[in-house]
């Protein structure tokens, strides 16, 4: 890994700090949600429909209720519940109609997990099958079965239409126009830890939820609405979670059902998805058909992009239906392009429904855009890097939507990956294999993303009697390392050793408000909040120390855990002494700083214009592949990945995010696909849903470029999703370079590549 930067005047920032929770994780002492037991707790299990679209005629629970150890059974017909979800278009326990194969029809509470599962098998449900539709193109036809009567034509009533300039005119005047349609699959987060929840009501009617959510405060309100209670009655605890990657960005039925069951049987209820259920009933990345035209001048200058995306929303609305928000931003903002048209159709089908997944919307757009950058280069006889650099975003640019680019090292990112991917590999291509290199870049929010009215995060920094510092942050840890980087920021600002900072971030009864983990925002937003709170407590500390040292405030500073007089550093007092002197006296005080950071950004307006992020992240990736022509097999030998990170606060964390992102993006490119047939998930297990394994991974060469963004904490920008975004496009471009075929469908399985190669071979050369 290389870091391109200036000087580093820091003690903690920029050093390689292992994760705060790593000791628990390597010793097996970490307690994930499935490891927790609440006294009196029983097990819950959800019964799902066996047909994707049907009217529920009758549910008979009598045999199940008679099973020893069964404590209670609920169905949609006998609990009080309210519609939930982004469009409030479903109930947790379905009443009357089921619309996809994951639909929940009943839930059991029992003394053991096994009894709960057995009881589910004993519940008899009579369905009256309804005509179903699984292809969005079919669902748009007038004669198609209607999935929700209130949404005629099966169209989700969100419009994402954006226009800038005059696309038709630009296309007419262009020297070259390339077109393509790209088909992108269902994939899923496939977290190692499945979704889980424990619900416990207390005698006052207060509900405590242990949840795998990554939006604890929005969840409080959403869950309250679904249960018909007020948000103040819900406390959310977030134990360590076995991955999330966007899975926890919405409220899903598991949490509501756990709460309903717990209320019904009057004892705490725990539900843990098994692996099948996780593949079936956790949110997916939305499948879509992405049609794009790009027009350019003979010198490669982009003139226009025209995109239309058909999204398979599945049966209900969650975040998958909002991905055009991001797709559009990339279409209209990645590389300079003045004339833009973007439109979507978001279509209800009887498939499982999609949520948010790392890099959401951006992988899809980037795949299409970067394919066409190569296609343009080929048509115009230009170098593939040259055409990208000619159109690259630059500091000071304003995109057609009004996104203001501040720091931007896109050019530098391409230079770095071009250098790294070309390093000697040590062996010639194997006989029968052809080698190729592909490039792709990326543009993403890097300074928060105002998709809600607030994009804020609160932080509290507390100093204690023994020299310990607690950061109480609204931000959630989902394995990504946020608590470590936030603790580093506090340690740096307060001038204390890193090991003295602990982080409290898992309880809504304690921590201040935050929007949640999404849009690569935590380091930037929660980092700024932590920095400001640390500054606040530092000012209080110095004020108090000034009295104790009998010195003017301006003369004091702090470092290594002591406050000292600048002109006479030997005159000093340890933090903890200042703290103790603060409260062991009459009229005393505690030392606690606080801050709320909400970035100076705008929500997109009705025309989809507005600067949604304070700053933007850029990256480039290059893939070196070999393709076996006889079989269509792709082997990725090397990935070079360069990222404009603003500043690498914790390089080990930056690398980990990028490397993991590349793994997830390569899965999208090569092997991962949740296969649905007639609405049924065919491959709900790791044997058939193929995550890349250790031997599958290529060599990864990383470059972190520090542009030091003045808006970020110590100059940092967001990074969490970047590694995932361009890689599938880079691999597709490398395949084109190697064997001359343009792959337009993911994943690029050997079969698809093989088929694509045959007509290419049949053509006379």
């Amino acid at each position, binding site marked *: 890994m290389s870091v391109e930067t200036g000087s580093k005047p820091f003690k903690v920032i920029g050093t390689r700090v292992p994760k705060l929770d790593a000791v628990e*994780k*390597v010793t*097996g002492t970490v307690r*994930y949600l499935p490891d927790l037991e609440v006294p009196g707790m029983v097990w819950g299990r959800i019964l799902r429909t066996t047909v994707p679209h049907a009217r529920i005629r009758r549910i008979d629970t009598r045999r199940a209720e008679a099973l020893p150890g069964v404590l209670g059974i609920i169905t949609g017909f006998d609990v009080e519940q309210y519609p939930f979800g982004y469009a409030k278009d479903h109930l947790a326990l379905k009443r009357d109609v089921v619309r996809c194969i994951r639909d929940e029809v009943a839930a059991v509470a029992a003394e053991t997990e096994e009894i709960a599962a057995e009881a589910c098998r004993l519940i008899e449900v009579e369905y009256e099958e309804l005509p179903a539709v699984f292809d969005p193109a079919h669902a748009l036809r007038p004669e198609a079965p209607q999935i929700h009567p209130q949404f005629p034509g099966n169209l989700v009533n969100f419009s994402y239409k954006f226009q800038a300039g005059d696309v038709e005119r630009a296309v007419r005047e262009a020297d070259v126009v390339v077109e393509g349609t790209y088909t992108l699959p269902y994939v899923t987060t496939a977290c190692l830890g499945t979704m889980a929840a424990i619900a416990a009501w207390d005698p006052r009617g207060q509900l405590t939820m242990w949840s795998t959510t990554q939006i604890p405060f929005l969840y409080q309100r959403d869950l309250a609405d679904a249960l018909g209670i007020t948000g103040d009655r819900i406390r959310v605890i977030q134990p360590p979670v076995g*991955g999330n990657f966007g899975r926890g960005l919405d409220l899903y039925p598991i949490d509501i059902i756990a709460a309903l069951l717990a209320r019904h049987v009057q004892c705490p209820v725990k539900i843990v998805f098994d*692996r099948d259920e996780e593949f079936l009933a956790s949110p997916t990345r939305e499948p879509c058909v992405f049609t794009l035209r790009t027009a350019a001048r003979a010198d490669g200058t982009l003139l226009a992009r025209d995109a239309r995306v058909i999204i398979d929303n599945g049966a209900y609305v969650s975040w998958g239906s909002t991905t055009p928000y991001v797709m559009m931003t990339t279409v209209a903002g990645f590389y300079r392009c003045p004339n833009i048209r973007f439109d979507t159709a978001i279509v209800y089908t009887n498939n499982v429904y999609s949520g948010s997944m790392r890099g959401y919307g951006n992988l899809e757009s980037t795949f299409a855009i970067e394919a066409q950058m190569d296609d343009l280069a080929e048509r115009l006889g230009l170098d593939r890097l040259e055409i990208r650099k000619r159109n690259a975003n630059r500091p000071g640019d304003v995109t057609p939507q009004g996104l203001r680019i501040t720091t931007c090292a896109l050019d530098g990112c391409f230079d770095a990956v071009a250098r790294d991917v070309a390093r000697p590999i040590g062996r010639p291509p194997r006989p029968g294999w052809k080698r190729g290199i592909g490039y792709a870049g990326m543009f993403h929010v890097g300074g928060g993303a105002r998709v809600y009215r607030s994009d804020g995060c609160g932080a509290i920094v507390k100093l204690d009697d023994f020299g310990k510092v607690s950061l109480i942050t609204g931000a959630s840890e989902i394995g990504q*390392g946020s608590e470590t980087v936030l603790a580093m920021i506090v340690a740096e600002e307060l001038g204390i050793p890193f090991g003295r900072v602990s982080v409290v971030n898992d309880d809504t009864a304690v921590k201040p408000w935050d929007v949640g983990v999404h849009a690569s925002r935590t380091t930037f937003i929660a980092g700024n909040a932590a920095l400001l709170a640390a500054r606040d407590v530092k000012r209080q500390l110095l004020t108090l120390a000034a009295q104790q040292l009998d010195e003017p405030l301006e003369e004091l500073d702090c470092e290594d855990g002591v406050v000292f007089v600048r002109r006479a550093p030997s005159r000093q007092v340890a933090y903890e002494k200042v703290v103790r002197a603060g409260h062991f006296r009459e009229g005393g005080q505690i030392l606690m700083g606080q801050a709320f950071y909400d970035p100076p950004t705008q929500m997109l307006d009705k025309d989809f214009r507005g600067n949604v992020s304070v700053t933007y992240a850029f990256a480039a990736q290059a893939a070196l592949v070999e393709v076996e022509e006889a079989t269509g097999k792709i082997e990725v030998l090397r990935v070079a990945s360069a990222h404009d990170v603003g500043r690498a606060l914790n390089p*080990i964390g930056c690398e980990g995010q990028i490397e993991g*992102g590349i793994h997830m993006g390569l899965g999208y490119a090569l092997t991962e696909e949740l296969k649905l047939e007639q609405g049924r998930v065919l491959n709900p297990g790791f044997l058939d849903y193929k995550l890349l394994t250790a031997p599958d991974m290529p060599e990864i060469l990383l470059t972190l470029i520090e542009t030091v963004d003045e808006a970020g904490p110590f100059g940092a920008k967001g990074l969490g999703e970047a590694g995932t975004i361009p890689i599938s496009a880079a691999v597709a471009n490398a395949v084109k370079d190697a064997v001359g075929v343009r792959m337009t469908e993911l994943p690029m399985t050997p079969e698809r590549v093989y088929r694509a190669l045959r007509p290419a071979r049949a053509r006379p050369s």
Partner: protein
Amino acid sequence: MADAYPLELAVNGRRVRRQVPGSRTLLEFLREDLRLTGTNLACDTGDCGACTVLVDGQPYTSCIMLALDVDGREVTTIEGLAARWQAQSGAAPPALHPVQQGFLDEGGAQCGFCTAGMVMAAAGLLEANAAPTATEIQAGLEGNLCRCTGYTKIVTAVAVAAERMRELRR
């Protein structure tokens, strides 16, 4: 308890005697009967490796192994790995096994759900092959899935651990 049979084995150096049903998996026995929750259940089909433990020093996926099949044998879980290492090497507590230390130092754990199984698989690998190449480490961990790290830092962690263990033996 109906359908229960006697089971006697050593878990993390301690003798354990229980009556267990014939259908109980080793993972259920560890997590539920012994409350050793460091070993995680992630697939229940032996496909992901998250539940890997050592049986007589060799890695096994405990979710598809019956508890009764380890009768009379010696099981080490993530909770007992450091003590096993201390006994093997003479290192004083609270020294971690070099693989654990490697994961800690090199950033081998992110969400951590695969970590216990990954560490146990790697420890088993190094008991069988003290000086694996990077390719051998990757191959040795092929049965262990990770969704966070891309395996890069995990492979480095194991290589660093192997090197440390060789140094200690010299």
